[in-house]
């Protein structure tokens, strides 16, 4: 059991005095990130919805990146991954990341292929 906690977040930029203040600090950060996400989701700025990056709207990329940021802080500070040994951390984190990236890659490529078949094939789907 990790009794002593690492109290720095943002790579040492912000150091908390105790574990409890760190928890509240992370909550404030996660709340801000969620508020930004919801704000963008409701306003949908045109500059972000009209521009595409690797086949997806820039806005959606922002959502995904912010989600990963939130996931990082939930795992690292709420689940105390920051205080675990690096061997445990790597075993738990990299295994799913590798498998999920692989799964997403094959499924989305396949989906795009089927989309094109539906679109250019000789069968109509809208009748």
């Amino acid at each position: 059991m990790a009794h002593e906690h690492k109290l720095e977040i943002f790579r040492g930029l912000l150091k908390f005095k105790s574990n409890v203040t760190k928890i509240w600090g992370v909550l404030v950060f996660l709340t801000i990130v969620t508020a930004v996400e919801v704000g963008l989701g409701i306003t949908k700025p045109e500059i972000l919805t009209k521009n595409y990056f690797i086949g997806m709207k820039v806005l959606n990329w922002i959502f995904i990146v912010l989600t990963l940021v939130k996931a990082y802080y939930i795992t690292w500070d709420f689940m105390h991954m920051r205080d675990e040994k690096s061997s445990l951390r790597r075993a738990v984190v990299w295994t799913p990341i590798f498998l999920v990236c692989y799964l997403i890659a094959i499924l989305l490529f396949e989906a795009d292929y089927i989309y094109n078949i539906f679109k250019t094939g000789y069968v109509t789907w809208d009748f």
Partner: protein
Amino acid sequence: MNSTVSSVSEENVWGGGNRPLGASYGKLMMWFFIVSDALTFSGFLASYGFSRFKFIETWPIADEVFTHVPFFHGNYPMYYVAFMTFILIMSSVTMVLAVDAGHRMIQKRVVLYMFLTIIGGLIFVGSQAWEWATFIRGDYGALETKGGRVLQFVKSDTGERAALADFAAVLDEERITQLKNEGVWFEDESALTTYSVNEVITGLKADNNILVRTETINEDGEKTLLSRAESLEKVNDAVRVVEGANLVRNEYGSRLFADFFFFITGFHGFHVFSGVVINVIIFFNVILGTYQRRGHYEMVEKVGLYWHFVDLVWVFVFTFFYLV
């Protein structure tokens, strides 16, 4: 002989008593369970992505579907889901505070924080039940064509969505739900819709203000609005009135959309529910002083890991189902 000499040091490495991962058995098993469960949820979300990319031009827009807030009328996209997200993050915070109090062996504070965590979990599950009920009931109603495409209706002067009740004609039609015991059908048919296809089409023809909106998303990221002439032409394809959602069809658009909604948020809601049950068990153990006598609160830490994981999954569901 050399090997016997070197085996002394090897025995220190392989002879047991080493903790290469520095975590107890129970915590390690919880982590392994979390990894496998994370892969299950990834499978669901990836298959959602698959279906969505497959029907990228016709997929429903989540902002237009989840627009309700309890006790308020009107159009409030996202606010309630954002509130639910905040509740779940907040209950994660009280959970981690309980773990912290457990490390410092302050029983009373563990009791308080566990209690708050359970309350947060119950609010979340209740919200999800309400969201399901709203989703199943639906609010506007739509027509379905022979090909299974959904046609929705819009008021042309305001651009707002039109409910079937706003324009459908009330005709003098008699149509009784066919029951098995009447011997006409081999099985009961599903409940009849409020309006028949004929009533909706007659109402549409009489009201010049109503236009048809198709599933297709245009270049501005909005659903395509047909002209009045096209609308009158298009409704001839309609074969069925759809109100609300079930596992077969829904008024929001693609059939898979409702299926994934029920499946993914349902599976997550089930996790929250079982998390609350486990939290309650641990809560009573804390009250009884089981962990105080044991000398450590590792059980609180283990259920804490599970609870945070449920929060973590919701963060992803929120993004991929409601935002993207």
